[in-house]
């Protein structure tokens, strides 16, 4: 440090004290300031004359900023889309929104899609079986206590449970639907087949949410999965796997969706106990 142009003279205490009190005229103050910028010694002596209280308080705010975790990429993208900070944090904490889940969805869907492309009816059976169950499994995982690191936090947070439910379900659907729709649309056969599985998917999700306060999320999701798989396999045995999503079935499934959805909205206060059974 000795080579630096540290001044050879120093400010006396009276001048420093007057400076802290805001007393010297502009011109002398300016002179003090240009000296302080160059002189570490006088900066220290100035500090000794000052109250440290407000500076110490300011430090705690700085430390809070420095130590705050940086929002994850998903969270920042959500914030950028105009979603509030709270909701973004909740969405990003949905287990189904994480990388491993997304990768799993991608692999399963692409596998089923490729199978459908190359092996006709068997592949189509597989796709129809898997596609509607992905969102169902996603919702089940999002509200099960074991899969959610924010579960304890969520159960004690004074936040509208219906809103939380909808926000997180939306997160699951947003993270799993686009890929599945894309794969469905490029499948051989009529274009409606690619999106026909949406009705059973939504009916399944609604049923899981409805039953969750009584049975938890894993049991209904497993039961729905079993029933759906059975239906698809039976249809395939009768030489047309697409029969499970034909217009008549669509009507039945839409009926289930409407009834379950209505029941869900009517009894949503009991959703406070959501996930406490798993």
């Amino acid at each position, binding site marked *: 440090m000795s080579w630096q142009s540290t001044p050879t003279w120093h400010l006396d205490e009276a001048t420093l004290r007057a*400076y802290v009190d*805001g007393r010297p005229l*502009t011109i*002398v103050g300016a002179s003090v300031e240009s000296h302080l*910028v*160059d002189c570490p010694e006088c*900066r220290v002596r100035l*500090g000794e004359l000052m109250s440290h209280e407000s500076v110490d308080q300011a*430090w705690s705010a*700085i430390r809070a900023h420095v130590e705050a975790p940086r929002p994850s990429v998903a969270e920042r993208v959500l914030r950028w889309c105009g979603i509030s900070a709270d909701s973004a944090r909740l969405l990003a904490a949905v287990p189904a929104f994480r990388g491993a889940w997304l990768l799993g969805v991608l692999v399963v869907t692409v596998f089923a899609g490729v199978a459908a492309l190359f092996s006709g009816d068997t592949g189509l059976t597989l796709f129809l079986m898997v596609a509607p169950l992905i969102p169902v499994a996603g919702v089940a995982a999002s509200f099960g206590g074991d899969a959610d690191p924010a579960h304890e936090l969520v159960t004690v947070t004074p936040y509208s449970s219906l809103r939380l439910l909808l926000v997180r379900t939306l997160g699951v659907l947003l993270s799993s639907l686009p890929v599945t729709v894309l794969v469905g649309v490029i499948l051989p056969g009529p274009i409606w087949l690619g999106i026909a599985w949406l009705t059973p998917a939504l009916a399944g999700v609604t049923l899981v949410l409805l039953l969750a306060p009584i049975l938890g999320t894993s049991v209904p999701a497993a039961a729905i999965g079993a029933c759906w798989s059975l239906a698809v396999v039976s249809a395939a045995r009768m030489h047309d796997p697409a029969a499970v999503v034909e217009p008549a079935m669509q009507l039945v499934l839409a009926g289930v969706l409407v009834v379950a959805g209505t029941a869900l909205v009517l009894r949503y206060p009991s959703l406070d106990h959501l996930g406490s059974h798993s």
Partner: protein
Amino acid sequence: MATRELTDADLIHAMAGRDEGALRELYDRHALWISARLARRCADPDAVSDVLQDTFIAAWDGASRFRGDGEVPAWLWGIAIRRLISRLRKRTGFRLGPALVESDAQDISAEERVLLRLENVDVGTAMARISPELRVVLQLTVLDGLNTREAAQLLGIPRGTVKSRLQRARVMMREELA
């Protein structure tokens, strides 16, 4: 780590590597004088405290952009004065600190005369003689390194007024120093 041995520039480089200890040391070295200098320009203690926070948060976030060619105190002050301006711009009715109030009191004490003589006496006495509103503009542009737009924002006067005052101040200083 023996942070006392490190130069300010070393601390900034350590901060670029997310070293919180380096930030703390930099804060200990510089927060007080920056706070005092801000307080002379803004009479609201809460605003001074906020600007101090903003300054060191900006230094932390921008540590990797620090070019080693400048002095750290000047760099920090450059951040602080601009943070002060952007804060003052957002709200009206703030009070300027003593250094920016155009006071006419000209009684320079004996000690202050000594100080002025030590520090470039000619410019000092010349500045003491020009009118206060010109002196304030000169101080913000020459000593704080602000441009005329920033000085205008800080003082809450039109940019054209700052420019014309600066012009007059230069003429007067030239006459005083001739």
